[in-house]
């Protein structure tokens, strides 16, 4: 690519801002995250079937309630005698053995409506009522990190900014670019024009400095594109001067039909995304935490289409070199019909915000009551979980 040969984009932005005055300069100055800790939030959109991902094979009602889905994990070796990973997630066993993974179960947001969109709103805002917050919990987390200078604390992977990262703390974004050559002089002039637009100027300026890497943006299958973005996230976070927090997503977990095959493909991609993150961040794995979590789990019993419908509690995975791993974190409610939420879903016994607070406190040292109240404003009764060390 031609871009970056003459000057880096950061220099362009500084130059542009300097020519039109100090007010513009503030738009390209970001809070430096003065931390070596890395965090990746991987949003599993569509409602991952937690009972398939992390199957409670030791539950006496498991086989009867799950029917054909129970057979899929029939041969799997339970992690701890009670929970077994879906076979497609077997690559995660190495983290379990190393004590670097905590699977979490019977976990839910505070939302109980079974709507994807409200569920994702609550998952990403970290606030009880859907549509009531205008900022995402990861953006607020980035804002709580100590900082100065001009480094972006957080980036979104992909072509849009997820709700979890929206808010007052400026965040960047990264995606695999189109392989086209562009004149840096042209980009410089166009960027100058954008400085005058109060919406577009700051949004563009939030980009990463430096030349863009040529990439392949033509992966047809969703899985390949997802894995490419996970690799890109790891590259950016691993860089010494790079961002410290990344949010990426994997769509496609809404398995209302033909779940056995669809879940298999989804789980294979998820395992590959997590492997790309762990491999790319191997050098800083002690400083890394990765949380993969979904807006809700799915119904306990299969529906008529070989799938499951929207449910309530589900499973999540926390990985990282300092994670207090080798255990499954769950206050298991049981799968007996009477134990199910409204007679159909896994009952939630753990609030995702206990994880959010636990990551802020245990991983980033953001543990003062006032900071945690800022992170999760209406969760004063939810104590942070001890997840690290």
């Amino acid at each position, binding site marked *: 690519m031609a*871009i970056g040969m003459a000057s880096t984009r950061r220099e362009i932005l500084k130059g542009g801002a300097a020519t039109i005055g100090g007010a513009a300069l503030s738009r390209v100055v970001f809070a430096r995250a003065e931390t070596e800790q890395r965090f990746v939030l991987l949003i599993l*959109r*569509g409602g991952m079937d937690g009972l398939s991902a992390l199957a409670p094979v030791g539950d006496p009602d498991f086989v009867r309630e799950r029917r054909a889905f129970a057979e899929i994990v029939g041969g799997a070796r339970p992690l701890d005698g009670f929970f077994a990973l879906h076979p497609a997630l077997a690559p995660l066993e190495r983290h379990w053995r190393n004590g670097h993974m905590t699977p979490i179960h019977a976990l839910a947001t505070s939302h109980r*409506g*079974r*709507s*994807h*969109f409200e569920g994702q709103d609550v998952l990403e805002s970290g606030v009880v009522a*859907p549509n009531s917050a205008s900022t995402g919990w990861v953006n607020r987390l980035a804002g709580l990190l100590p900082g100065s200078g001009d480094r972006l604390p957080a980036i979104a992977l*992909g*072509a*849009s*900014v997820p709700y979890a990262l*929206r808010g007052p703390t400026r965040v*960047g*974004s*990264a*995606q*695999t*670019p*189109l392989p*086209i050559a*562009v*004149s840096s002089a*042209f*980009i410089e*002039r*166009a*960027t*100058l*024009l*954008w400085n*005058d*637009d*109060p*919406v*577009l100027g700051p*949004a*563009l*300026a*939030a*980009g*990463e400095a430096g030349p*863009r890497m040529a990439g392949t*943006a*033509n992966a047809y299958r969703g899985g390949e*594109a997802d894995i490419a973005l996970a690799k890109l996230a790891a590259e950016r976070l691993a860089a010494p001067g790079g961002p410290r927090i990344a949010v990426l997503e994997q*769509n*496609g977990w*809404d398995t*209302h*039909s033909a779940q056995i095959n669809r879940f298999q493909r989804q789980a294979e991609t998820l395992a590959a995304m997590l492997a790309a993150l762990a491999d790319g961040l191997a050098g800083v794995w002690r400083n890394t935490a990765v949380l993969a979590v979904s807006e809700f789990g799915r119904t306990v019993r*299969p*529906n*008529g*289409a070989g*799938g499951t*419908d*929207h449910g309530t509690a589900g499973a999540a995975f926390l990985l990282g070199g300092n994670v207090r791993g080798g255990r499954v974190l769950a206050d298991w409610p049981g799968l007996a019909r009477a134990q199910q939420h*409204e007679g159909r879903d896994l009952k939630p016994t753990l609030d995702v915000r206990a994880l959010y607070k636990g990551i802020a406190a245990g991983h980033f040292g953001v543990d003062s009551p006032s900071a945690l109240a800022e992170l999760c404003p209406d969760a004063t009764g939810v104590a942070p979980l001890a997840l690290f060390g």
Partner: protein
Amino acid sequence: MLLSRAAVIAANRFGLGARPAEVPAIAADPRGWLRAQIADAVSGAVPPAPLRAMPFATDHTEALFRARIAAEGGDLDVVNETMARERFRPAALAEAAALFRAQVATEAPFVERWAMFWANHFTVGARLPILGATAGGFEREALRPHLFGRFGDMLLATARHPAMLIYLDNANSVGMSSPVAARFPVGMTENHAREILELHTVGRESGYTQDDVVALARILTGWTFGRTAIDGCKPGHFCFIAQRHEPGTPTLLGRIFGQPDAAQGEAALAMLAAHPATARRLALKLARHFIADDPPEDAVATLERAYLDSGGDLLRLAETLIALPEAWRDDPASRKLRTPREWLIAAARLLDLDVQPGPVWRILQALGQAPFGAPSPAGWPDRAEAWLASDALRQRLDLAYALTRRLPPQLSPAGLLDAALGETAGPATRRAVLGAESAADAFAMLLASPEFQWR
């Protein structure tokens, strides 16, 4: 010709960006230009040329289910994968290219934007290869016949269309007490019912409950398409199969539905289409699309009244929208960010670009809006913040440059600047475009200008 602010709004906010040849007509009477497009569409204008030769969605679904019948005892995954490779993926590419060309070539860009709005409201995403192949047919068959008809008719057409029945899984939903469920291990799925309530009609604000979702799911059991050699239906075509329908008289949103068979679902959808919460929700979505991310309440209320007074007449809604003073305001609070697709269409219309099928797909995918690729049944977001990722914006700049390298020499930067932005071009943009080193750089600067990102 320098377009007035009203003409720029007609061309960009209501349309898809001006083609230079349209400029005189838009300038002469911006609102009249929009109304004439609707009048032509109402009087039976056929779909734009690139869409006329495309296949029916049922050509694909019928082929799929006939192949499945033929493979009885064979491996269905192999059938599916073979058909995906040989038929459905090439078909999806052709559909995406045809739709893009139609939107670039159309002389009725308001009608095309209106179609795009409803296709997003009733999203069918290419979750499976068969859906990529049939999403275009869905738009032509379920949506376009009703663009200026009744919303209730459009809703019914979507609920009966094979692409939607596959996308939201209702094709596989069987009543638990139905004759079929007595013989086979099958059951009900809630997905289509839930999304009809949440996304297509009344919305969460209406306060429906899980019981309402289950009631509508029961009502819609048996709405499917032919799939076997013996079910009496044509494979891949819509069919109500009474043997799959849940008997009973469910209560949905406080109303009891006691009709027999498919009439029960038709009555339920008609009730939902006429519901005040649906009027409110559609009014808000339309105002958000045509006025601002957070549209003024007066405008929403006017649209809501038009919907209720007319019994959900989409022609009345379109006319009301064009007559709204709020939609013609030119201030920072009344503007909409062009989505990547809208940006690429506007660029192609302005410069008469012929973007080939492969590049159309790859460019839209890189910008975050792959054809038929909406991430969920909620469709593409219609608020600016979803599209403000810095790298995606930067890719617009890169593309502005790449798309303008080989243009015919007779194009005039000054003429195209006026056609694209008219009076709304700021002095800095005007200087940057007219002072560019080359015509190619001038066009690139125009596509990259901040004004060109908005409509």
